[in-house]
């Protein structure tokens, strides 16, 4: 086996090896674990995208405030601490919950901040039907509770109509 490399700072055995290319010149640095840690170069396994994108923002900008107040996702209980650890989110709602944090991160990650690709049209249409049916069903229950039977009948008919068109959509 090759001879162990020495840390460029303290002469202990180096376990962290960095190669960087600056202006077409290859620069190599070998560090021991404690010096690497001191220099902020942590174990690559523990390093996450979230760290990379989030940490400098916190240090420099007012984002720090909004950051602390983001708390946890009301939908799934995910926390920003968790996000920083894994670089992943807990649920679709997290995109809203952590929006201030994410919009900065997304900025550096992608080629824009607006989706320009495929849209699940069928699913969206179905969803809008389902939402309207749910709404009307709530109204129907309320009307029944208040003994407004004429209105209730109207709601019921509308719901039936919507369900019929939804079914027609699905079989089509």
């Amino acid at each position, binding site marked *: 086996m090759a001879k162990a490399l020495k840390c460029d700072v303290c002469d202990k055995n180096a376990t962290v090896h960095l190669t960087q290319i600056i202006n077409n010149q290859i620069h190599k640095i070998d560090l021991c674990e404690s010096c690497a840690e001191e220099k902020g170069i942590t174990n690559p396994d523990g390093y996450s995208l979230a760290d990379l994108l989030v940490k400098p923002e916190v240090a420099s900008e007012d984002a720090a405030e909004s950051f602390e107040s983001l708390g946890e996702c009301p939908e799934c209980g995910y926390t920003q601490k968790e996000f920083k650890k894994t670089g*992943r*989110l807990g649920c679709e709602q997290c*995109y809203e919950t952590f929006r201030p944090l994410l919009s900065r991160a997304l900025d550096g990650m992608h*080629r*824009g901040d607006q989706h320009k690709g495929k849209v699940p049209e069928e699913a969206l249409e179905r969803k809008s039907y389902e939402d309207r049916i749910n709404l009307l069903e709530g109204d129907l229950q309320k009307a029944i509770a208040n003994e407004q039977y004429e209105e209730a009948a109207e709601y019921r008919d509308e719901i039936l109509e919507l369900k019929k068109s939804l079914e027609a959509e699905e079989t089509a």
Partner: protein
Amino acid sequence: MTEGAAKKCPVVLMTRVRLARNLMNHPFPGWAKMPQKKDVLETCLPAVASLRPMKRGITAEIEELSELEKQILVERHLISRELSGSPERAGVVISKDQSVSVMINEEDHLRMQVVKSGYQFKSAWNTVNNLDTALEGGLNYAFSSRLGYLTACPTNVGTGMRASAMMHLPALVISNQMEKVVRAVNQLGIAVRGLFGEGSDASGSIFQISNQTTLGESEEAIIKRLSSVLKTIIDQEINAREKILETDPDKLLDKIGRAYGILQNSHLLSSNECMNLVSLVRFGVDLEMFSEEMRNIVDRLFIECQPGHIQHHAGKSIDTSERDAYRSEYLRKQFENIDKPENSILKVTTGQESMNTESNNEEENEKG
């Protein structure tokens, strides 16, 4: 892709397009509790299995598979290492011809991929797009008009699409130019990885080139951008081949001849060494030093020499050193009747001209 067309584009082994999708109102798999993951699995597994391309395919819950079975699926790129490592309430559906696979409860609820041999991005995208539209007929996806398809990791949000090409770049590796290529390509938002994706090394001079960004561009625009980078890399590889043949043909003949000799006569071969030797033989096929029929054999060997496949072939679980012996025996048999390399190569037969034919070919394929 027809064999004829594959022959004309020796640099691209295969193309793959995968989409990440999640169900509305369900936490992402990494954060979901077991009953929630179970719910997603039970919703998705039958929905995917009933799709037309999956008829007579394989449907499996990952927990039910043995370690070896999982390893074989990983080596064939049909499931990811991540799925194999966290199999709880996870599943996979694989089409009969293994060109389509859909993972359930990996990083996202659904990860669907289509693999095509050779250079066929548009066709792979069309297939996976149709599959996705069919699935959407029965499943409600988490989607926002602003951010597109919502994924567990913000690096996939938007299209949720990762298109990748598996490229064989031996001349760029031999002439030490890969580092330069990787650097240039990274600046264009395109990632370069080893054969088995994130964190894997590039044994056998095989690299996976894929888009890094998923938001702000349409699927077609991403593929177009990736294709143009791919074409540049192909050109670079062809140039590097010509250069080596011009300046140092003996070195190349020596490398390929030795690879042939070792494959025919060795008694201990690690999978990494094997990959590098088979890669050189494939380079030899491109240079017409071996018959064209060898191409299918070597492309198969890239997968068959992986540890899981060797054990599968042996019919039992065996340790590394025994595996190395078994692998070399397998290769000796494969190379027993292969004629020795033709050494009179004078010109590169995989030159610019045939690459152009290929790009036309791809367009023709897409029209058809």
